[in-house]
């Protein structure tokens, strides 16, 4: 079996389409997981047990079950409930929801790390609760949170191929289509594998630099 550069060249148009879809999932999935994660984190800090408890159960459950099965669950069950989304939308929601349970822990740690004196100062100035959060606590928490969130974005990137399982045309699915059409498995799959390393490794270096800079 020899490496065939022309197979690589033939795969390129499909590959770029896949890269765009992968990046699209990554951006929208990250935004969803960042916002939803904050909602979970605030829910876990709620005064009321009736908010804390259900949020805790839901996030633990989502965190400890496989993304792939959640993906199939949403893809096959939502239509039964009369909610019809495209595979791409369903996949993005699944990945965003799954990772929101991880980002929730990040937010929680970040919020806990804000010194207690800051809370007391806000109370002393009799700031209303929402001002305490938006003007005092969250701006300080975000600085500590950013690197950890970056790590989860990289993890999310590496989970986007799962969406091939429901037929989303991201990188892996494009390589499967190419292989099915040309019977060339080696080149498309290797190109996709290398593409992941080429995106993920510089990204993790970036996160590490960020971490070092914010730690100072």
């Amino acid at each position, binding site marked *: *079996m020899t490496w065939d550069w022309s197979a690589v060249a033939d795969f390129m148009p499909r590959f770029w389409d896949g890269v765009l879809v992968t990046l699209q999932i990554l951006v929208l999935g990250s935004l969803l997981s960042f916002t939803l994660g904050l909602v979970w984190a605030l829910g876990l800090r709620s005064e009321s047990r009736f908010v804390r408890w259900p949020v805790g159960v839901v996030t633990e*459950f989502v965190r*400890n*079950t*496989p*993304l*792939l*099965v*959640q993906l*199939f*669950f949403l893809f*096959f*069950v939502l239509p*039964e*409930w009369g909610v019809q989304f495209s595979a791409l939308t369903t996949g993005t929601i699944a990945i965003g929801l799954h990772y929101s349970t991880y980002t929730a822990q990040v937010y929680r740690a970040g919020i806990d790390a804000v010194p207690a004196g800051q809370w007391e100062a806000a109370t002393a100035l009799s700031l209303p609760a929402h001002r305490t959060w938006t003007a005092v606590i969250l701006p300080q928490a975000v600085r500590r949170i950013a690197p950890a969130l970056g790590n989860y974005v990289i993890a999310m*990137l*590496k*989970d*986007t*191929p*799962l969406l*091939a*399982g429901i037929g989303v045309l991201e*990188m*892996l699915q494009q390589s*499967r289509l190419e*292989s099915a059409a040309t019977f060339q*498995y*080696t080149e498309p*799959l*290797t190109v*996709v*594998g290398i593409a*992941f*390393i080429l995106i*993920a*490794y510089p990204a*993790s270096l970036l996160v590490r630099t960020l971490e070092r800079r914010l730690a100072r």
Partner: protein
Amino acid sequence: MTSGLWQNWVLPGIWITVQLTLYSAALATAVAFGVGMARTHRSKAVRFLAAFYTEVFRGTSALVLMFWLFFVLPPLLGWQLVPMWAAVLALGLSYGAYGAEIVRGALNAVAPAQREAGVALSFTPWQRMRLILLPQAVPEMIPSFGNLAVELLKGTALVSLLGVGDVSFAAYLVRLATQESAQIYTVTLVIYFVLAFAITRSMKALERKTKANLGVVVK
């Protein structure tokens, strides 16, 4: 759900998921200790190779790696891996790379004076590792390894895309047969949750036990 489907597909599927988790965890542990210790080796070349391994296997997606081992390796080497073993290899090698970072972190966290004491007693590097560093580092690794084991359990679901008959694959077949998606997928999620819970609990027990050997009490 009819009992035939349950007995013929779901129960064996659970067993295959458990086996996959155990085999790949064993491989991942071996890789993690091998590569993790290599990252603290004296020789720069060994350290570089170990770091290279970690970055490559952490950088790519486990699913892509699995497809690669299953579809690309056979024509390259001239022999075919059974899907189950392609899966174990992919999961073990990639989660092993994550584990290597845990091993490295724990080894580095052992107080430097402990290593110096070993040098002062003229222990060989391997004796220092075996008698001083590892016994103190291993209990520190266990909580992180517990998290990684749950991640690994969840990763085993990927093998259903290669057609290995694990519990996710069984769920897919049952869905095709009964058209009752909500039911079977809810059951499947609960099965994974129970397995993950079992892992978390046993790792907690293991942590308590190994730390008790060092005279540390875990609450």
